[in-house]
């Protein structure tokens, strides 16, 4: 499953903000962390701000702060701001020998699974999964370090 670059940036950003809800973070900080252009990221953050997921912070340094409930906002809430996923349905008639329609049904199966997955993962759950992944990586590093040299 591939998501557009803007969508991925939006997800990374929202999760960075949601991980520390009170904290004010600048576009430059996140851009640096993920190795992307501040210009592109600023646009993404502006869109997230307009959608009410982030609130812009006035004054010196600027930046944004998380705005919302991490237990209620889902991955879909972010993704649908940047991709035409929620409303996607099998289009067109059955076409020649029913081929178009039948293939559209197959693709719709996959779409429905993707949508259900995104709708059922809250930011809270996503952060929990991220923590687990980080912990497992740490364990893997420990195992590599303690492995006897041949």
């Amino acid at each position, binding site marked *: 499953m591939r998501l557009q670059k803007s969508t991925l940036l939006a997800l990374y950003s929202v999760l960075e903000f949601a991980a520390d809800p009170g904290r004010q973070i600048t576009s430059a900080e996140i851009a640096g962390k993920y190795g992307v252009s501040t210009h592109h990221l600023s646009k993404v953050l502006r869109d997230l701000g307009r959608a009410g997921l982030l609130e812009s912070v006035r004054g010196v340094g600027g930046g944004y702060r998380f705005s919302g409930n991490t237990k209620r906002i*889902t991955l879909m809430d972010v993704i649908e701001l940047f991709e035409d996923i929620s409303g996607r349905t099998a289009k067109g008639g059955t076409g020649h020998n029913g081929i178009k329609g039948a293939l559209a049904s197959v693709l719709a199966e996959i779409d*429905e*699974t993707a949508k*259900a*997955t995104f*709708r*059922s*993962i*809250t930011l*809270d*759950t996503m952060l*929990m*999964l991220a923590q*687990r992944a980080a912990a497992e990586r740490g364990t893997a590093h420990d195992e590599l370090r303690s492995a006897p040299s041949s």
Partner: protein
Amino acid sequence: MIAIDAEVTGLEKTDYWYEVYRRYGASRTRQRLFLVAEAEGTVQGFVVGEVRDWEFGSPPCGWVFGLSVRPGARQAGIGTRLLQAVCDRLRHAGVNQVRTLVARDNTLVLSFFRSQGMTAAPAIILEKVLEKALD
């Protein structure tokens, strides 16, 4: 139980739940579990669990179904404790994996199980309508 399920699903399945209780609650076996969460003398939620051996090409696995909490008693961690309790007993029964089946459009229940660390299993349910035989 029947009342909670009726409140949640809108369907009163009296016979079904009596049968579930008979199979999972009445007999004392480690492989079948029927747990309830009680607060102030009333049942606020319940969960049914079972060990299923070698289904769908999988080694013995714990299955959880019917986890339900009275709508008025939610957001208090009861669902989490019910799942933990049934998982403890499933581990005690010898399995190290738990699965559950949820309707694709049941976002609420899907979100709950995912919040408990469950992710999609490498399995798919397939279905078809059985057409009436022409005889």
